[in-house]
């Protein structure tokens, strides 16, 4: 089980090195994306002005506070986040959400936008596993419900697109030492979620028999 430090954007070769069970720390840039963002991007044909090629997206809709987009003014206010807040927002609390709802957007995110890493909780399904394998991507598990901690890994909200969908906008975060994250699904067809699910299904009959409910 290796630990990897990845500076964003990543190359296909970077991603192919990752194996299920490895841990990863991300540096520099991370995009936040959610149900509504992807419904608008892929069902309603909206395009983002951000270049997501080689990047990581996290399934999130953050708690934010409006600030003066002038960087010197916002720094003077002693914000919770440092760096430049050109977006006009600073982080209050940023974590993750259940990825499964966004399963059908994995392939278009990769094919159309060039995304290589999806971060979330609870895992994705077989279509995503195939997309990761064919196109060179992976799923990194961040701990759901640990947002207070994860907020400390985000240094600024640099920019925001499609903000009419707030809080389900497309966010660009500056990050430092974002992780450790767990490789839940890799680019070689591996999925920790599939393995756990299979092992759970195998135990089901014995568990029910013990309950007298076989």
């Amino acid at each position, binding site marked *: 089980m290796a630990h990897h430090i990845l500076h964003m954007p990543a190359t296909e070769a970077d991603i192919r090195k990752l194996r299920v069970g490895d841990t990863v720390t991300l540096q520099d840039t991370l995009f936040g994306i959610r149900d509504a963002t992807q419904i608008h991007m892929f069902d309603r044909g909206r395009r983002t002005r951000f270049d997501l090629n080689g990047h990581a997206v996290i399934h999130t809709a953050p708690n934010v506070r409006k600030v003066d987009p002038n960087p010197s003014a916002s720094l003077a206010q002693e914000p919770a986040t440092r760096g430049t807040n050109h977006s006009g927002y600073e982080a209050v609390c940023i974590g993750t*959400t*259940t990825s*499964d709802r966004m399963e059908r957007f994995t392939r278009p995110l990769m094919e159309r936008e060039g995304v290589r890493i999806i971060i979330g909780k*609870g895992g994705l399904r077989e279509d995503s596993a195939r997309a990761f394998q064919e196109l060179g991507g992976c799923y990194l598990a961040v*701990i759901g419900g640990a*947002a*207070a901690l994860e907020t400390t890994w985000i240094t600024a909200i640099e920019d925001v697109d499609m903000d009419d969908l707030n809080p389900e906008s497309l966010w660009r975060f500056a990050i430092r030492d974002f992780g450790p994250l767990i490789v839940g699904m890799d680019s070689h067809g591996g999925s920790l*979620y599939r393995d756990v699910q299979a092992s759970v*299904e195998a135990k089901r009959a014995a568990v029910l028999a*013990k309950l007298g409910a076989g």
Partner: protein
Amino acid sequence: MSVITTPDKLRVTPDAIEEAAKLLYIRALKILPDDIKQGFFRLDSTETDGLAKSVLATMIENIAVAERTENLLCQDTGIPIFNVQIGRDVEVDGWALKQAIARGTERATREHPLRSSVVHPITRVNAHTSCGAHVPVIHVDFVETPRTLRLEMIPKGSGSENGSFLQMLIPADGLSGVKRFVVDAAIKAGGKVCPPTILGVGVGGTSDLCMHLAKVAATRPLGSVCADAEGAKLEVELSEAVNSLGIGPQGLGGDSTAFAVHVEVAATHITMNPVAVNVQCHSARRASATFTPEGVVVGF
């Protein structure tokens, strides 16, 4: 018929309710109840899987970071639920109380600020108030305790709420059908509901009451036991069963799938055998304010 008022009553004003609603929403999002913290330490001490232990350690660290930085435990501000218990000899304007709870919720959202996680179900428009039609969800109950009004706030996260299951089983399915349904619900929910969870099970009643019982069960403090002896027995059996499946924290494998399975029961019809599952995630947040003639006590 006549109306009699006596001096020995507790009067609670809408302003006091509004302030409490605002305070409780923010407090619930930031400070985890002691029984849940103890639950984490218990799971951590018995977990045998290495990865699961590290996941639990991150969750425990997050609780400390949230308290130290006075930040929210989880980004999901949830659907705001308020449970109001009104004792005997309490004077409160019920209509004004409901408006005051909504005002307090909206003020918490705007003034903290918090993410409004509430949208219109058809247009999907977010009013950025955490309020909307029938939201906050408000349940009012009347209890015997004299001159006491208790306001409990639960920010119900969506990851776990999406793991809700109802089945109108029939008498011939028996108790074994109920047990099988709960185990299969836990399997279906997997890691999506942010385990370790409190798995709430409703048995009996009507379809809507059954699901309400499951929610009451899921949001009960850890260590509490079903008042019905048969329900209490089922809690022990199902807790052991669910934790034998190996789903683990975040669905990544391990022993710690549920802090506990809680059961609530209601009488049902001779032809019916309803069962419901509602899940509380590991960020099992709640806060309460108890009004008495001596003042207001804020707790969990």
